[in-house]
């Protein structure tokens, strides 16, 4: 069993990267690995907006995050990156607002850090 951290760097309009991160995360869990955190950085922070409401034929972004959350994965949002980009930090849904240091510590303890962008 290995310990992973994943980071997402692209905006929610990049549906393709979002679905790939989700599937990679599920494949990790299916193999019995642990995901210590998924971290939103750079434009990835926009995923924590509560106003993402897409048509039914679009990728169900909100639901994917809900599912990862139900797997007890720590979904973290970089506070510095989010403030610079005008995200509302009062309502970030399943994401917890975290400093870069918190994530860097988890990344230092993990076996693997895989970036998605």
């Amino acid at each position, binding site marked *: 069993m290995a310990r992973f951290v994943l980071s997402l760097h692209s905006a929610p309009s990049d549906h393709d990267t979002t679905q790939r991160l989700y599937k990679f995360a599920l494949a990790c869990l*299916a193999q019995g690995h642990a995901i210590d955190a998924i971290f939103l950085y750079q434009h990835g922070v926009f995923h924590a907006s509560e106003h993402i409401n897409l048509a039914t034929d679009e990728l169900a972004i909100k639901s994917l995050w809900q599912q990862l959350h139900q797997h007890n994965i720590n979904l973290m949002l970089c506070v510095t990156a989010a403030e610079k980009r005008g995200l509302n930090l009062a309502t970030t849904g399943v994401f917890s607002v975290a400093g870069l240091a918190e994530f860097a510590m988890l990344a230092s303890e993990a076996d693997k850090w895989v970036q998605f962008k």
Partner: protein
Amino acid sequence: MSTLHIFSKPISYYDNARLVNLIQPQDKVLLVSDACYSINLYRQLAASLLVLAEDASARGIDIVKPDECQNYADFVALTLSTSQSITW
């Protein structure tokens, strides 16, 4: 000691003159997303390319030898069998 190199865009998005010098013969090159469209052009980076099957299939791209299909379980395994990964 090998590195996993992950590409998600056609090779024209990258500075391949520089990249080709950073990839070693024992390294693995994984193509996902729109990188699948330019398998032939990625040949300069590795003799055998690994391609995420789902992504290639959605784009109507066939994977033929010497390239290899990978599913998500393989993708996870690849990150563990290599020493480090770089998402370019």
